[in-house]
């Protein structure tokens, strides 16, 4: 029996399957993919900013126990180059395309989107509010009002679905999720990385050029899953779960917690086939357990405890 693993993330946005690369962890291009990108539920781009950003000074990476600290700092070719050089290459894949948008001011997100509206082949935008705000140096993703303002401007710039990506570096993820819902988000994606750092004991200085970096990978999975669980209970729009997903069982945890789709980031680095394995693994799990569609298991662990 064929199972249905497609998922509707917003009206008019139905992905063929619920598995996507996490922004900034997947390279599209000739000769870099271990499998055809068309197999993905969607392609999510690295976050694009209005003007080119160089990113942070190296070193940018440091492995920790079951985790990866990165201080890449969202380098971006900028809107113009993305539109002219990257987008045409991306459109040729036969799957949905989600463009991740970054900005450092309340207006920048809408500006990037405005610059892409004439382009066909973009299924949705994912708004990455984790960069520091030019105004006060604090990321939008920890300031509900400011984030909502930036989102409302983006909302006015496009009729395409908007996915808001949330940061885990907050006291109450529900507050941020609800601000995003109010601001017009069609779906949420969480979590981005958890801020951390490492010190080189021999050189007696921070390992990363930027001192702080974002922690990703299996280490943060319990945190991500908890925040997805909390968010699903607090909003009524679909939630995309990510953070430390390394295999099918991890992905299933997020669906059972109530996520409608998932993204895979750090796990791609060691296993470029992992997303394909998870797509197949989800279908197998549903079949083996006699479910006919993915949505049958979404949130099932929530009902278990309500009984």
């Amino acid at each position, binding site marked *: 029996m064929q199972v249905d693993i497609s998922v509707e993330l917003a009206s008019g946005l139905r992905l063929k399957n619920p598995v996507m690369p996490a922004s*900034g*962890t*997947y*390279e599209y*291009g000739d*000769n*870099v*993919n*271990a499998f055809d990108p068309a197999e993905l539920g969607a392609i999510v781009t*690295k976050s694009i900013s209005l003007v080119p950003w*160089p*990113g942070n*000074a*190296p*070193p*940018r*990476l*440091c*492995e920790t*126990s*079951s*985790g*990866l600290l*990165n201080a*890449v700092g969202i*380098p971006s070719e900028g809107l113009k180059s993305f539109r002219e050089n990257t987008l045409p290459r991306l459109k040729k894949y036969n799957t949905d395309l989600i463009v991740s948008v970054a900005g450092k001011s309340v207006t920048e997100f809408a500006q990037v989107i405005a610059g892409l509206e004439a382009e066909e082949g973009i299924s949705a935008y994912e708004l990455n509010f984790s960069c520091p705000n030019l105004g006060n140096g604090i990321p939008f993703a920890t300031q509900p009002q400011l984030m909502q303002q930036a989102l409302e401007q983006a909302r006015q710039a496009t009729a395409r679905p908007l996915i808001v990506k949330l940061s885990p570096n907050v006291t109450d993820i529900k507050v941020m999720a609800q601000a995003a819902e109010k601001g017009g988000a069609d779906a949420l994606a969480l979590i981005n990385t958890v801020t951390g750092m490492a010190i080189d004991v021999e050189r007696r200085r921070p390992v990363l050029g930027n001192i702080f970096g974002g922690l990703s*990978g*299996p280490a943060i999975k319990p945190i991500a899953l908890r925040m997805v669980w909390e968010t699903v209970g607090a909003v009524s729009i679909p939630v995309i779960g990510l953070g430390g997903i*390394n295999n099918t069982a991890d992905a299933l945890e997020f669906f059972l917690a109530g996520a409608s789709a998932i993204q895979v980031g*750090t*796990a*791609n*680095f*060691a*296993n*470029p*086939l992992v997303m394909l394995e998870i797509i197949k693994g989800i279908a197998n799990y549903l079949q083996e357990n006699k479910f006919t569609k993915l949505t049958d298991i979404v949130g099932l662990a929530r009902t278990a405890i309500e009984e």
Partner: protein
Amino acid sequence: MIFTKGKIVEQKAVANGYYLLSIAQPDIASKAIPGQFVMLKAWERGDLILPRPFSLYRILPRQGQLQILYKVRGKGTAEMARRVPGDEVELIGPSGNGVTLPAKGAIALLGRGIGAAPLMAIAEEAAAKGLAVYTFLSARKRELVLGDEDFARYSRRVIVATDADQENGSRLLTDLLADLLSEGISVDRVFTCGSKRLARGLVPMQSQYGFKAYVLLEEVMACGIGACKGCVCKIAAPGGGGVVYKKVCQDGPVFPVDEVVW
């Protein structure tokens, strides 16, 4: 990009904490060129989540094998050293740009310590093309001069300097290269790896001796294929003034010495 498994054929200790690993992996062996590298994972422990980059020490397409010369530095390389023939490793590659050799003439290779690793594949290919190869190797002590016997097979000369044993007066390889060039020998291209000091020392020598020099850089990597943007080095902005970040994995690992900003 190839993501595949390879079987360990041989694991040989070449010095204390240094190993030569031979892996059967015909697909990568038939595609790779000198200067390229692979991302290798040789463990199942879930706390080490990233594969590690290793240069190809020798590329053996006919045997369908790759050789990696490595030093035990941390947890990942310690795990590697525990693997035995028959064990499988995961490989992503061949990655990076590799080197471009001149059509004829001579090249020099300057390697410090484990920096000798990528130079062997270059020496072998250069010799096969009929180029003259001059190899300069240095290390803290004699036993850490790696692969000198292999290099001898492909080189006109192998010149060694060691700190502890004062071989060749512990002199810098760049000085020893200058000595050679002063003998009237000329080289067209120089490749170096393993020492910032050597690479920087080559910059002014280029115009003086009429060669072009390249360095093989190392940076901590996550993906090895240009996806994570984590492995950048600083490169002088074209046109001068400022610095741009280039990915070692995709734009390198081979860079002209005069473009690198240290």
